[in-house]
C-alpha cells in the first residue's frame, strides 16, 4: 500500500510536469504542423536561467520563475522569426533536421557557458520538506508541481475555449488560409502561440528541475519523451496530452519502482503499443 501510494504520487507529479512542458509542443504542432525537436531545449534554457537567477543572483523562487519564462521567450522569438518561419509547411525531414540542429547548437552553447555539471534551483523554505495531508505525507514540491499542472490545464482550456484569442487560434488550426482571409492575422497568432508554448516549456523546466535535473544533455534526453507525449495524445489536443502524460508518467514511474533493472524498456514498449493501436494519438482528429 505504501509503495502503491508513493508510485501514485510520483507518477502524478511526473505526469503533470511532462504535461506543462509538452502541452506547448502539442499546441504548436497542431497549429503550425512543425515537428519541433528543440522544445526540450527551451525547457532547459528556462531551467538554466532560473538556476542562474536564484543561485548566483540570490533572487526569490517566484521571481526566478518569471525571469526564466520571460528570458526564454526573448531568446525564442527571434528563432521563430528567422528560422522556424522558413520551415512551416516544409517536408518532415527538413523540419526534423532544422530543429535537431537548433537543439545541438543550444546544447553545445549551454555546455560552453554553464559547464557540463548539474544545475540546481534552490527551493524556497515553503516547498522543502514534506506536507501532511492527513493519512500520508508528500514532498511539498511534488504537490506544487501537481498544482501547477492543474492550473496550466485549466488556464489553457479557458484561453482556448473562452477567449477571442482562442477563437482565432482554433480558426487558424482548422484552416489557416480561410482564417487569414477573414482577417485573422495568422502570423501574429503563430508568433504568440509559439511564445506561449516556449514560456510554458520554460515554466515546466523550472518547476520540474527536481525530477528532470537541468544539465546540457537535458534537451536530447527528454526530447523523445516530450515528442512521445504529443504523439500519444494527439497533436493539438489538451485533454489528449493530459491523458497521455498521466498514462506515460504512470508506466514510467511504475517501471522504475518495480523493475528498475529494465530501465525504460517498458516505457518504450508501451509507446509502441499505444501508437500502434492509435496511430493518430488517443485524441487525434482524423484528417
Amino acid at each position, binding site marked *: 500500500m505504501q509503495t502503491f501510494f508513493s508510485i501514485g504520487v510520483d507518477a502524478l507529479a511526473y505526469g503533470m510536469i511532462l504535461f506543462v512542458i509538452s502541452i506547448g509542443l502539442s499546441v504548436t*504542432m497542431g497549429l503550425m504542423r512543425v*515537428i519541433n525537436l528543440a522544445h526540450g531545449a527551451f525547457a532547459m534554457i528556462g531551467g538554466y536561467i532560473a538556476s542562474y537567477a536564484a543561485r548566483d543572483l540570490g533572487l526569490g523562487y517566484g521571481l526566478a520563475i518569471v525571469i526564466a519564462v520571460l528570458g526564454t521567450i526573448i531568446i525564442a522569438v527571434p528563432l521563430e522569426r528567422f*528560422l522556424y518561419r*522558413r*520551415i512551416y509547411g516544409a517536408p*518532415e*525531414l*527538413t523540419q*526534423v*533536421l*532544422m530543429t*535537431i*540542429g*537548433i*537543439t*545541438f*547548437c*543550444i*546544447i*553545445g*552553447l549551454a*555546455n*560552453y557557458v554553464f559547464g557540463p555539471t548539474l544545475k540546481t534551483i534552490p527551493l524556497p523554505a515553503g516547498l522543502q520538506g514534506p506536507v501532511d495531508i492527513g493519512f500520508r505525507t508528500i514532498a511539498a514540491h511534488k504537490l506544487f508541481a501537481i498544482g501547477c499542472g492543474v492550473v496550466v490545464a485549466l488556464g489553457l482550456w479557458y484561453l482556448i475555449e473562452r477567449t477571442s484569442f482562442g477563437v482565432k487560434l482554433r480558426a487558424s488550426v482548422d484552416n489557416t488560409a480561410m482564417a487569414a482571409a477573414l482577417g485573422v492575422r495568422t502570423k501574429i497568432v503563430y508568433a504568440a502561440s509559439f511564445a506561449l508554448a516556449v514560456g510554458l516549456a520554460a515554466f515546466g523546466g523550472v518547476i520540474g528541475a527536481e525530477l528532470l535535473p537541468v544539465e546540457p544533455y537535458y534537451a*536530447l534526453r527528454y526530447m*523523445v519523451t516530450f*515528442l*512521445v507525449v*504529443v*504523439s*500519444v495524445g494527439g*497533436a493539438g489536443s489538451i485533454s489528449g496530452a493530459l491523458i497521455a502524460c498521466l498514462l506515460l508518467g504512470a508506466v514510467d514511474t511504475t517501471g522504475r519502482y518495480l523493475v528498475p*533493472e*529494465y*530501465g*525504460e*524498456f517498458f516505457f*518504450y*514498449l508501451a*509507446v*509502441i503499443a499505444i*501508437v*500502434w493501436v492509435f*496511430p*493518430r*494519438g488517443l485524441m487525434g482528429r482524423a484528417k
Partner: protein
Amino acid sequence: MSAEASVTAMPAQNRGWQRDLIGIAVILVAAIAGYFLFPNNLALLTRMIAIMLLVLSLDLVTGYCGVATLGHAALFGSGAYAAGIAAAHFGITEPITMIAIGAVGGALAGLISGIVILRGHGLAQLVLSIAIIHLFHEAANKASEYTGGSDGLSGISPDPVLGVFEFDLWGRTAYVFGIVLLLLVFILLRILVRSPFGMLCRGIRQDPVRVSAMGASVKLTLIKMYVISGLVAGVGGAFNAVSTQVVGLDSLSFTNSAEALVMLVLGGVGSLYGALIGTIAFVWIEDLVSAANPFHWLTIVGALLIAVVLFAPKGLYGTAATLLERYRRGGK
C-alpha cells in the same frame, strides 16, 4: 512508338552505366589514395567505411522511399551484435561468415522495425522509430550475458580473410576488406535502385496513393526495402565488429541514428554518391573538430545542419550536381 522510345532510352541508359563505371573508378582511386596518404589513420578510414554502409542503408529508406526515421542504427547495431555474438559465444570466427550472419541479423531487425515504423505517418512514424532504437538499446543493455551490456562485447577475434590475409595491427587488411565490401554493396545497390523495384520505391516517395491505385502494395514494397536496407546496415555493423573486434552499446544508440541522418542530408538525400560524400565530410570534420575542441563539436554540427537546410537543401552532392548541370548548359 515503342521503337522510338527504346531508341531514345538506350543512350540514356548507356550513359548511366558509363557514369557508374566512372563513379566506381573514383571510389577506387579515393580508396587507394586514402591508403597511401593516411597510412597512420587507416582505423579512421575503416570506421568511415562501416558508417558509409549504414548511411547507404538509411538512404534506401529515407532517400528512395521517403520514410523519415531516427532509429536506423537499430539495424546497424543488430548486425554488429549478431556477428559479435556468433564470434564470441559460438566460435564462428570466419570473417565472411560473420558478415553474412550480420547481414541476416540486420535484415531481421529491418523486418521488425519496418513493420513497426510503417504503421504510423509523420510524427507517429518518427516517434515509433525513436521508440524502436531505445527499445533495442535497452534490450541489448539488459541481455548483458550475451551482449556484455554497457561494458561492450569483446573477445571477437576473426580468422584471416579467406584463410590468407590476417588482420594486422595497422588495420591494412581490415581496410582493404572493407573497400571490397563497400564496392560490392555499392554495385548491387546501383543495380537495385535502377531496377523496376527501385523505381516503384521512388514512385511511392512521390505519391503513395497513386502507386496503390496502380495496383502495387505500398506497404509490402516498403517492408521489402526495409529488409534490404537491413541487409546493408547489417553488413556495415558486422564489418565494424570484425574490424574493431568489439561491439559497444553506442552502436545501438539514438545519437548514432541521428548522426547517420545528418551525414545523409549533408551529402544529399536520394543519391548513393551523396551518402558516401556526406559520410566522408562528416567523419572528417568530426575528427578535426573533436581533436581541436570537443566542447564545440555539437554546436558545429547543429550550425552545419541549419546551414544545409537553409542554403543547400539538396546536400553537397546534389548542389554540386546542379551547379555542374547549369555550367554545362551554359557552356553549350
